[in-house]
């Protein structure tokens, strides 16, 4: 037989279904939030890692100056330190998407689709392997190609030969960045001696041998050592590329994303802990008189404490039973979504067992821990206090603030009562405000960081004042370019720039030489100054170059390897750019001299057009390309700035999705918490409401005053949320900026975020106060006063 005191616990839970439901909902919301984030975090972290490592990423890529034979590759496989090798040349080009538009294309030429050893990809849909004249498209770039399986597309390789290819199917290459994000198409074709030979003759194609090293595949210096040895023994190697070992091309994005998930996991956890504390406080305040009665019946402090801890444990268990499975399901759904954004596939969406166990353990132990203080307080309370009406606080008027409030006379009396009650029950006020503020701070911070990214993107766009950029297949005299463009009516202004590739240590950097009088680039300076017309052997570097070699500094030299020579440029400035690509800006003559070319050659052109809208710019770029081609200038790529800006912003989608996800989750958890907290607050005041009714307050007046109290708490919590969101925003701006663009973002507080939360919290406060207040006001006066 169950002892009557335990029966009381069960009966209390069962007989106040609304209260129980509110408490369980609030706690379940917390458990849901934390579980959802933990699940998606752990599943994504595990799956992203394995998805990438399952492709067997090549340790190094040796670029040859001609064709390699299968026998050569076989001999490389046998070399010491080499575990495996594969020949996979790459052809650059463009793919026609209709309406005179082309998108960048990268074609991987595969020797044998049945023997893919490195940088693996798997069939996704359609045929496998492709036949002659067929191409397999990476699944994430099919939308970029604006084509479907079975369609014929026109491909123009950089030798300007156009050929039709039939899309035979799609593949999944988890090691490639998603095509829709890069705004480029990746395709895989069968090795075709004719095409290979012609491209090689024209210098468009260089064979590439991919190798996987034995030993520590994550040790970059070991990889370089092996690659150098292999290069020396086979000869004809023009370049060795070593991708950062173990890092997916979008690893920085994934890191930022996972960091945000983790950060908001912690915030949600804090929110749910405060929420649980508020719930328990509300439950216990209800019960104080009964505690007094039980004490007169001889109950000891320990007996009372165990009763209420037992009750908390039961509620917590119910909350876990609801919140954890839902959280796991939602977390899995989000993980699938996020993986698709990163071109990864989740093969096993089950969260690790320890996550589930930890969540259950935390779901029980945290409410109990949080409850210990208030339960001990309630259990130790003297019977005298328990029976008196003013429980747990000093009488109104003993604090200076109360007396100050009491002096405010100009407000309507019922409103004054609301305010005084709000501030008098200090414990309840603090907990309620803390719950709302924790949710608000997380929401505002998420919105702030999202807005900061948008602003960063916009600022970077404003720094580039051209509309179209065209890159040539080889350098041409600037005068020839300008003359060709003079015939295009849409061109308002054009500048010829010089570009070259260079190495800083082992890393690739881009060397860009804007026109000496360039008006089209105004990147924000972190330090130093921008290039001047009279500059010579100087450079302005961006923050990504600095992160490659942190010893670089203003006034020092940057040693660049260009065509086998070391060129030293003096650093005069450091700029911040959104693109994480390492770029060195230098005067064109310095670049041309370093590359051994005559002055006045241009490798690219930046153009301002008359057309402001996208379709106008598309038409303009068609006309520009045509004019350049007519003048004998071979265009390797032409891109509207709006398009590259779109690509930048697509790279941020996953980060923003994490932020929006976090904000929505916080609204859900915080909203449920707010509603239940305020509703329980009103329940706590049933007796007071009865007295008000007794002295003539109408249900309408009462409801209005309770709503005012809810609003006051909402506004207070909003102020607290704003304050707390400042350091959170600052930390997230710094961390995500550092991870993704290698530079902290400029701190920004979004007024929209603050306004949205204020509105949300006011609406929720009004709704969750009004209904319970009206309900209380409708209770008969006698019932309310007798309500214990």
């Amino acid at each position, binding site marked *: 037989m169950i002892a*009557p005191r335990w029966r009381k616990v069960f009966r209390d839970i069962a007989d106040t279904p609304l209260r129980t439901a509110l408490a369980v909902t609030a706690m379940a919301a917390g458990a849901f939030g934390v579980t959802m984030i933990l699940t998606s975090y752990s599943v994504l972290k595990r799956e992203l890692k394995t998805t990438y490592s399952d492709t067997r990423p090549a340790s190094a890529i040796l670029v040859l100056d001609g064709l390699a034979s299968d026998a050569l590759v076989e001999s490389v496989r046998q070399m010491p330190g080499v575990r495996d090798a594969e020949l996979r040349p790459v052809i650059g080009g463009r793919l026609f998407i209709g309406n005179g538009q082309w998108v960048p294309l990268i074609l991987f030429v595969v020797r044998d689709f049945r023997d893919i050893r490195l940088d693996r990809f798997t069939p996704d849909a359609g045929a496998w392997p492709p036949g002659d004249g067929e191409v397999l498209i990476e699944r994430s770039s099919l939308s970029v190609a604006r084509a479907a399986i079975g369609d014929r597309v026109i491909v123009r390789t950089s030798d300007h030969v156009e050929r039709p290819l039939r899309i035979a199917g799609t593949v999944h290459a988890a090691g490639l960045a998603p095509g829709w994000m890069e705004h480029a198409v990746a395709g895989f074709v069968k090795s075709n001696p004719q095409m290979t030979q012609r491209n090689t003759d024209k210098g468009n194609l260089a064979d590439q041998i991919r190798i996987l090293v034995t030993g520590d595949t994550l040790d970059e210096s070991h990889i370089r050592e092996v690659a150098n040895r292999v290069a020396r023994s086979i000869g004809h190697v023009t370049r060795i590329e070593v991708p950062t070992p173990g890092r997916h091309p979008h690893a920085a994005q994934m890191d930022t994303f996972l960091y945000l998930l983790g950060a908001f996991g912690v915030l949600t956890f804090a929110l749910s802990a405060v929420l649980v504390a508020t719930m328990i406080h509300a439950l216990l305040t209800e019960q104080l008189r009964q505690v007094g009665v039980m004490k*007169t*019946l001889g109950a000891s402090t320990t007996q009372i404490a165990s009763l209420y801890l037992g009750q908390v444990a039961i509620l917590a268990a119910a909350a876990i039973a609801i919140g954890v499975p839902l959280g796991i399901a939602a977390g899995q759904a989000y993980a699938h979504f996020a993986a698709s954004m990163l071109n990864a596939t989740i093969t096993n969406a089950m969260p690790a067992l320890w996550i589930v166990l930890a969540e259950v353990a935390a779901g029980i132990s945290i409410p109990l821990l949080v409850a210990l203080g208030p339960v001990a307080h309630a259990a130790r309370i003297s019977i005298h206090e328990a029976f008196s009406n003013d429980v747990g606080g000093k*009488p109104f008027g003993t604090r200076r603030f109360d007396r100050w409030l009491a002096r405010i006379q100009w407000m309507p009396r019922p409103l004054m009562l609301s305010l005084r009650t709000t501030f008098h029950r200090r414990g309840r006020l603090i907990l309620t405000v803390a719950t709302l503020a924790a949710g608000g701070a997380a929401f505002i911070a998420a919105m702030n960081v999202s807005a900061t990214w948008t602003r960063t993107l916009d600022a970077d766009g404003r720094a580039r004042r051209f509309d179209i950029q065209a890159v040539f297949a080889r350098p041409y005299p600037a005068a020839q370019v300008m003359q060709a463009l003079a015939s295009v009516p849409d061109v308002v202004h054009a500048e010829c720039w010089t570009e070259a590739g260079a190495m800083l240590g082992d890393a690739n950097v881009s060397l860009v030489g804007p026109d000496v009088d360039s008006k089209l680039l105004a990147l924000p300076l972190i330090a130093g100054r921008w290039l001047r017309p009279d500059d010579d052997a100087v450079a302005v570097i961006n923050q990504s170059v600095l992160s490659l070699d942190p010893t670089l500094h203003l006034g020092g030299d940057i040693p660049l390897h260009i065509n086998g020579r070391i060129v030293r440029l003096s650093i005069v400035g450091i700029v911040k750019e959104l693109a994480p690509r390492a770029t060195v800006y230098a005067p064109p003559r310095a670049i041309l001299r370093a590359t051994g070319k005559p002055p006045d050659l241009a490798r690219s052109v930046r153009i301002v057009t008359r057309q402001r809208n996208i379709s106008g710019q598309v038409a303009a770029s068609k006309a520009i390309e045509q004019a350049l081609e007519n003048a004998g200038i071979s265009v390797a790529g032409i891109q509207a700035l709006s398009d590259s800006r779109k690509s930048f912003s697509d790279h941020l989608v996953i980060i923003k999705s994490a932020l929006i996800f976090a904000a929505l989750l916080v609204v859900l958890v915080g909203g449920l918490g707010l509603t239940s907290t305020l509703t329980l607050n009103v329940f706590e005041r049933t007796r007071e409401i009865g007295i008000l009714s007794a002295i003539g307050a109408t249900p309408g007046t009462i409801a209005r005053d309770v709503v005012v109290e809810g609003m006051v708490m909402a506004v207070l919590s909003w102020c607290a949320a704003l304050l707390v969101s400042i350091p959170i925003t600052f930390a997230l701006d710094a961390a995500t900026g550092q991870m993704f663009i290698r530079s902290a973002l400029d701190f920004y507080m979004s007024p929209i975020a603050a306004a949205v939360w204020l509105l949300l919290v006011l609406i929720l406060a009004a709704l969750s106060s009004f209904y319970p207040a009206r309900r209380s006001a409708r209770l008969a006066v006698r019932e309310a006063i007798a309500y214990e």
Partner: protein
Amino acid sequence: MIHVQALSKTYETPAGAFPALRNIDLDIAAGEFVAIVGKSGSGKSTLLNMVGGIDRPSSGTLRVGGRRIQGLTHSELASWRGRTVGFVFQFFQLLPTLTVAENVMLPMDFCGVRPRSERRKHAMSLLDRVGVADQADKLPSALSGGQQQRVAIARALANDPPVILADEPTGNLDSETSIAIFRLFGELSEEGKTLLVVTHDREAAASVSRTVTIVDGCVA
């Protein structure tokens, strides 16, 4: 049974120190049925709370059942109270989520005075004694005020305490029911219980063996 000597209680309030009881001397023998009367705020309930160990005196001596209760710790006081004193309140104070019988069993549960299996039987006999055995499995809210107070008395008797303290036990009841409750108290007193009852009800208080009047915190 109850020995009060030079007992004083002063409350600190925002308006200054308020002496609720001043220098009270009072002796009540076992089996006495004593009514404490006086105006509102005279200190009647404070005195009752002191005797029941609900509130602590500021000074003076207090012995109940030969035991000095000032020196007891919280938990000692709780278990002492459960075995020695039965409380009856003006507003009954039954736990709303427990049935009538369970309310009566609760003190036995807290103090562990009887084997578990006998508790219900004992509760039923107490309910029978106060005349509400037929209500045993109802919730308090289904009972009339008089019935609830009878249950509260049965609950006060649960651990067979020598002392019963009642604070305005009839303050919320009609006069007929009030007389019946006082008759019940009289029977308990005849059985040897010591009863100390705070009341306004002159008519009902006629059945007591002694009346103590408190005026402004002093025995008049």
